[in-house]
């Protein structure tokens, strides 16, 4: 009996040692260097930013209740249309002035501004609180171009990022989102999500990496959405920003939002 136990402990100990050594061996055995090459067409920038020209946008909204950008974004990213506003998933959406800018809205603003909705999306902050609070690095800031990324497969669904984001840009899948997608409309090149994970706008990293503009920018027929590298003085966004006065949401919080609004 005694001997059996000793034997068992020995084998058990060696097995545990072996199992714990396995990941080390795997790490050492791995090849150095990138396993894939970036697409040579990929757009390159240090900090992507977006300008939303609300004047142009509102003209289209007045003319034909335009929602081209939202439709394009939500279709390409398999964003479900959930009717319950408490459980909605939003990547790109419309919000009234006083709700989009609660810290600076005032009642004497022009009627046009007060009555027409603003386009809201993730601000891809320079200093994102959601990234700071995530306990698993499921949301992280991409080093090369500052996109605030979201790994749906690593997210544990603690929703700390939702508490951390001051822009309401994050949505949680309270239930299974797939029944809300039409099977024939699903974009097979982009993952659908399962219940219990957080999602948001990712500035179309998958398109940028192939040299394409974000889907919303491409869909906007009047060029009300302008995308570019805000650190590059020669970029179109910088030219526009230096020529027009622009607004950003809740700048007093120091998050450094990278979405600018022209009115």
């Amino acid at each position, binding site marked *: 009996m005694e001997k059996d136990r000793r034997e068992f402990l020995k084998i058990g100990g060696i097995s545990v040692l072996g199992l714990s050594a396995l990941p080390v061996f795997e790490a050492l055995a791995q090849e150095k260097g990138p396993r894939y090459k970036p697409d040579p067409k990929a757009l390159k920038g240090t900090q992507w930013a977006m300008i939303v020209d609300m004047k142009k946008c509102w003209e289209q909204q007045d003319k034909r209740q335009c929602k081209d950008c939202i439709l394009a974004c939500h279709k390409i990213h398999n964003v479900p249309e959930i009717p319950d506003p*408490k*459980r*909605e998933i*939003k990547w790109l959406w419309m*919000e009234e002035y*006083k*709700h*989009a800018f*609660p810290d600076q809205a005032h009642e004497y603003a022009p009627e046009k501004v007060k009555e027409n909705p603003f386009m809201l999306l993730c601000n891809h902050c320079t200093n994102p*609180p959601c990234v*700071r*609070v*995530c*306990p*698993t*690095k*499921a949301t992280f800031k991409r080093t090369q171009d500052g996109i605030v990324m979201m790994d749906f497969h*690593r*997210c*544990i*669904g*603690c*929703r*700390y990022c*939702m*508490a*951390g*984001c*001051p*822009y*309401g840009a994050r*949505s*949680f*899948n*309270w*239930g*299974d989102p797939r029944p809300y997608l039409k099977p024939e409309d699903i974009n097979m090149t982009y993952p659908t999500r399962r*219940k*219990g*994970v*957080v999602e948001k706008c990712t500035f179309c990293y998958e398109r940028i990496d192939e040299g394409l503009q974000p889907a919303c920018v491409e869909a906007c027929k009047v060029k009300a959405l302008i995308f570019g590298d805000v650190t590059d003085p020669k970029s179109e966004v910088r030219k526009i920003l230096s020529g027009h006065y622009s607004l950003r949401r*809740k700048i007093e*919080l*120091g*998050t450094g939002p990278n979405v600018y609004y022209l009115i």
Partner: protein
Amino acid sequence: MLEKAFKGGQKYWSLLLGLLVLSGIGFACFMLQLNQGLRITGMSRDVSWGFYIAQFTFLVGVAASAVMVVLPYYLHHVKEFGRITILGEFLAVSAVTMCLLFIVVDLGQPMRLLNVLLHPTPNSILFWDMVVLNGYLFLNAVIGWTVLSAERKEMPPPTWVKPLIYVSIPWAVSIHTVTAFLYAGLPGRHFWLTAIMAARFLASAFASGPSLLILLCFLIRKRTNFDPGQSAIDKLSKIVTYAMITSVFFLLLEIFTAFYSKIPGHMHGFIYQFTGYEGHAELVPFMWLSVILSVTALILLIPPQFRSNEKLLKIACLTVFFGLYLEKGVGLVVTGFIPNVFDKVTPYVPTVPELAITVGVWATGFLIMAVLYKVAIGVKEEIRA
């Protein structure tokens, strides 16, 4: 020692059975939640943390309060607490277990829980909360069990346990500080963004935890042959008194800053809690009840002649516990989301399955506590006999 948990009267077994049934119901509802997702709760994209996280926050305080008997006994040789340190430690074990369970039931993907270890992220306060809570559970379980085993053999506890005891004292402070940091470091949540959050948490913890401990001491004295000692209860009641005064004082500081500065973001949370905001007043009755309970508690605790009266002390402890429960376990977390970042109000009301899961976790915690207390008291009775 565990065998003591298996020898008990009918009342003991009925208690365990009752708690088991409640945790069973909670577990069944949790299975439903695993299957359906968190949509079976009352939470929403605007109020993304609800009752679970609120319970967790309150219970971290109860857990931390063990230090209020451990510190005086081991650092200041307050002999009266020698008999009840084990009760404080086992209360901490069950409270921390509840905290961890509340975090697990709140996750959207609980099966991915270990990602927190697989991808450790030191910049996340939640990562540190995981570290300190598990550490605190480990410390109290080991210390409690070891000291009790030594006591049973009528030997002094082994020397290696002393450093652990000393570590457990600042560790208790750390669990509630880190839990306060979960809230106090978020831009755009004005109700939580306050530097005295950790101090408020600790003050309320040192009132609510010891008041529960006093009630448990009375219960043990009545139902078993073990007397925790009147002087220990008297000392604890003084701790509750000072902690409760501090806790109310800290809350008043918050209210001053909010309403004298008149900064809307700082006022809105309190306005929502006490008068309702933009037509929404879900929390108003609970928050006023909390005020009434807290004021009653202070009236009963501050004059020594009231607090030394057993009946009044029991009422005082109940009012402290439930008053602070309403403040922290009901009001604090939800109000952080109301009004939301768009200055809109989405009300939150927990659903029946959500409440059943909550009750289930509490029942599991009390089940653990009942078993551990049975062991501890069994040992104490054995030594006396």
